[in-house]
Every structure is written in C-alpha cells, then in structure tokens.
C-alpha cells in the first residue's frame, strides 16, 4: 500500500480502540450500573413515545442497547447521543420486523411528549417551581406553556388558539420549555 493510501486507510486503527485514547480508563462495574439506572427510563420512553414501540418490547430494546454498550464503552465518546442513537435505530428495526397493524392516531401522536422535553420538565423540582419558571419567560412562551400545563390544552387546541399548525405548536412548546429551564437555572444561580 503506497504512502497516500497508508495514511488514508489508517481507518483500521479506529476499528479497535484508537478511541481508547480519549478515555483514560474503562468505567468500573459500578459506573456501568449507574449508566443503566440513569438511562434505562429515558431509552424506554424514547422507544414508546417517539416510535410507539409497545411497552414490554421497549424495555427489551432499552436493555439490549445498554448491554451492547458494555463492549463498546471504551469506544463511545459521548454516552447519551450514542445510547439515544442506538435506541432510535433499534426501534426502527423493531418496526421493520413487526409491521404496524394499528393505524397511528395523529392527535394522540401530537399529544405525546417529546422525550427531550420530558427530561426538562423532570428537572424542575416541582410544579410550583414550574410556575416560577414561567415568570421568567417572555409573554408568548408564558402563554403557550400556561395553556399547555395550567389549562391542560392539547397541542391541537393550542395550535387552533394561536392560529398555527400543530407541528409548529409542538415545536414552540419544546422551545419554551428549554428556555424556561435555562432562565430558571440562571435565576437560581443569582439567588
């Protein structure tokens, strides 16, 4: 192999552990267990809410993803994106093998929480804190989140009231939640 290819094709080095350079040591058993406890629920939620995988199957997929991580821990630079990528691919694969028999309900789909947003809301200590967080927002975001979480409106109802498409309403909700989390965090630091 000539010089050019030798350098181009150093791909072989990444196949087995060149990335170990990026992690000085392998996580020990306890660290693995922390990973399992910390991510199992998120992975299951993604499979269920984003891909509509049945609950029990979603748990199996999440378990398999976490088990498969064990042999790749030295190779994974960023854990969360790796796990999320793996569960998304696993869920799609699940549906390739088990073609849908139940038609999806568009309205139900829209009402399902975005898994990323789910975590954000979780991080707010309680519902009062959520109200406090709302106070940090601009008027539009406050209005959107109030409709969603204080008035109990569905995404479709919010879209109708704002005169926008449901998909866009869903995006706005997620965006406002992220903003609430950021601003509320900043407020906390200042206090």
């Amino acid at each position, binding site marked *: *192999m*000539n*010089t*050019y290819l*030798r*350098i*181009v*094709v*150093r*791909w*072989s080095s*990444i*196949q087995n*552990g060149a*990335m170990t350079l990026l992690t000085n040591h*392998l996580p020990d*058993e306890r660290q*693995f*267990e922390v990973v*399992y*406890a910390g991510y*199992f629920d998120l992975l*299951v*939620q993604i499979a269920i809410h984003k891909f509509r995988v049945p609950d029990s199957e979603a*748990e199996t*997929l*999440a*378990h*398999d*993803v976490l*088990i*498969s991580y*064990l*042999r*790749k821990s030295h190779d994974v*630079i*960023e854990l*969360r*994106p*790796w796990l999320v*990528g*793996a569960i*998304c*691919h*696993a869920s*799609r*694969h*699940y549906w*390739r*093998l088990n073609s849908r028999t139940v038609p999806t309900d568009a309205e139900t789909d829209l009402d399902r*929480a975005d898994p990323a947003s*789910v975590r954000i809301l979780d991080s707010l200590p309680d*519902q*009062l804190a959520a*109200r406090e967080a709302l106070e940090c927002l601009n008027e539009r975001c406050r209005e959107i989140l109030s409709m*969603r*979480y*204080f*008035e*109990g409106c569905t995404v479709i109802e919010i879209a109708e009231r704002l005169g926008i498409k449901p998909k866009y309403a869903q995006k706005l909700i997620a965006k406002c939640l992220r903003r609430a989390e950021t601003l509320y965090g900043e407020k906390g630091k200042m206090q």
Partner: protein
Amino acid sequence: MSDHEKVVPFDRGQRQPDPARVAEFAATARKLQQEREGAAATVTRLLAETPYAEWPKLAQREELRNSGALDELSREVVSRVDRVPLESLAIAQLGTAVADSLSASSYPVVVLAQIRAQAWKDRGLALCYLARYPEALEAFDRAEDALRPFGTLAHDRAIVQFARATTLQEAKRYDESFALLGECKTIFIDHGDTRRHLMCGIAEAALLHRMGKFAEARTAYSDLLEQATEINDRSLLASIHNNIGHSSIELGDYTSAADHLDRAVRILTELGQPLHVARAELARGRMFVRKGDYETGIAHLHSVRQQFLKHNLVEEAGLCGLDIVEAHLLRASTIEAEAFAWQIVREFTAAQLNARAITALGYLSEAIAARNASVATVQHVRQFIRNLRKQPEAEFVATA
C-alpha cells in the same frame, strides 16, 4: 380552584427496570471487566511462545476463549495488518475460530453477536490487505449475518460496513463503496460518533482521488478540515493535510501541496510519529522530482531514506531508493541510477528480504546498465515489490 390544583400532572413515572435484567447487566459488566484484565499479557505471551504455524491450535486454549482475549487478538490483527498481513490473517482466523466456538450461554445473545461480528470483520480486514477481496467480502457478510437480528447493533453494523466500503474501494467497486459510506455516515452521526463520521468523509474524498477526480477530492478534504479541528483529532487532521498535499501534487499546485505537507509534518512531529513524518516527507521529495527540481528532490529523498533505514525498514527504504533511481533516470544520470539500484540490491540481500524482490531489483540494475530501463521500468519493479507484501510467491515478469 387554586392555580396549583389546576396544574396538569405530567405523569410519566420513573420506569423501574426488571431486577432480573439489572442482574444480568451487572453480571455481564463484571464478567467483561474481569476478562479484560490480564488479557493483553496472555495474548502477547501465547503468540510469542507459539510457532506461527501452530497458531490455529491456540483456539483450544481456555485462556483465549473469552471476550477480553478476543479483543486483544483483534488489536493484534489491526496492529500487524500493515506490516505482516499474513500473520494478521492467521490471528484473525484464530479469532473467528474462538468466537464461533463460544457456547451460546457464555454471554447474552447481543454480546455474543458483537464478539463474533468483530472477529469476522477483522478477518475481512486482513484478507483485504492481502488483496483477497472476494474472501474479505464474504467475511464481512458473516459479520453482518451475526448482527442482523439485533436492531440495537446498528453502530456495530456500520463499522463492518465501513470496512466493507474500504474493501470495495480496493476492489475498484467505487460506486458501491460510495453508497455504503453514505449509509455509514448517517448511522455514525446518529450515534454521535463524530470521529468515524469524519473517517467516512476522508474515505469518500480518497475515493474521488482514486477515481482521478483530484480537484473534487481536494475540495472534499478541505471541507473536512474544520470538522477535524472541531473534534480535535490531530491524527486525522494530519492525514487530511497530507492527502490534500497529494491531491494538490496531482493538480500541479505545488505551493498548496508544500503548505499542506508542511502542516501534516508539523502535526505528526508533535504527535511523535517519525515514520508518518518520513512518509509525508517522501511525498514532498516526489513533488520536487515531479516539478523537475531533481537535485532538491534527490537530496530530500536521501534524507527520508535515512529515516527508514534508521528504523530498520529496509524494504521501505528500498522503495524510497527507487524514487531516487527514477529521479536519476529523469535527469539522464544513468551511472548514478545504476549504482544506486545496485546499492538497494545489496541492502535487500543483507536484510535477507524476499528473493523475488532481489531478482526484480537485479533485473532493474542490469536494464539500466544496458540502457534499456525507463521510468516505467522502475515503476513496474516498485509495484512488484509492493505487491509481494500481499502475494509473497508472485513471480517477477520483466517488461523491457
């Protein structure tokens, strides 16, 4: 009703994993961890104390029949594949023999699939380096077969597909390789694996270079510089600069070539990789010859050759020497060309390198003496010696 009571509960509950599964996970983590410990020393010792011809028998050794040892065998395959591909293949064959014979109950099925797929992927890699492309592709098929039932192993599958794409490039099946690299990129980026994503980009650019689309290749490489800088992968950054240098040489843009080769050399020096520095400098020497600056080129190539000899890389030094012979021929210095060709013959003989290489070099020296040699003759001999790495039994066929 107070505001507080009006709050819509956001009740998704914290899902508790099945204790049996947690126990399986913990037990697997513990087992894999224990197997990693000491595996490197075991594999190194067994390979060192066992004659090469008897390596297949090592498949029966209990201490190799686990994930940790197989990972170490995999590292041995990769580390030897460039230097001694036949040894690499022998180790890869040992790896597949061990992996395939592990009992179904030894690991969770997902882990077992990963272990087997890695072993077969390594075997494909070694076969690719030996130019046995159909067999390499069959090995990748085996790896993918192991992974196919598990949707959770998309990342593993993309790694195998990346190896397949590279093999397809070697086999000149460029379109298939290109399509596969696109699929791999998607999967790698989905998993946040920016490094392998970048590697796919480099492979795509290399593909363009191989197809003779040097301008497109250079653009593609240049587009990757930012990404390599962003993920702070100095080694890949050096590769990209080096490859831009090569594409620029092909385009006759020697200023850009020199600039990028300079950068590659600087980074590789900082990384403490003297042999890669020498290889980048070899490209610079060829560039001088290419643009007709023979004196500078020959002097530069001599200094590169010394680096290879310093590391006892006689064959690589000899190949570099053939660039010097070629430069002498280009400037019509036949006597110097002949003398240098004989010197390479002596070095190869002293180092007891492949007798067929010595025959080819002897033929070249005599052809130069008889004024029958051209640059094409040198290139033919150089190609033959390179191919001996893959086909040590190949016979030299004279061209002049």
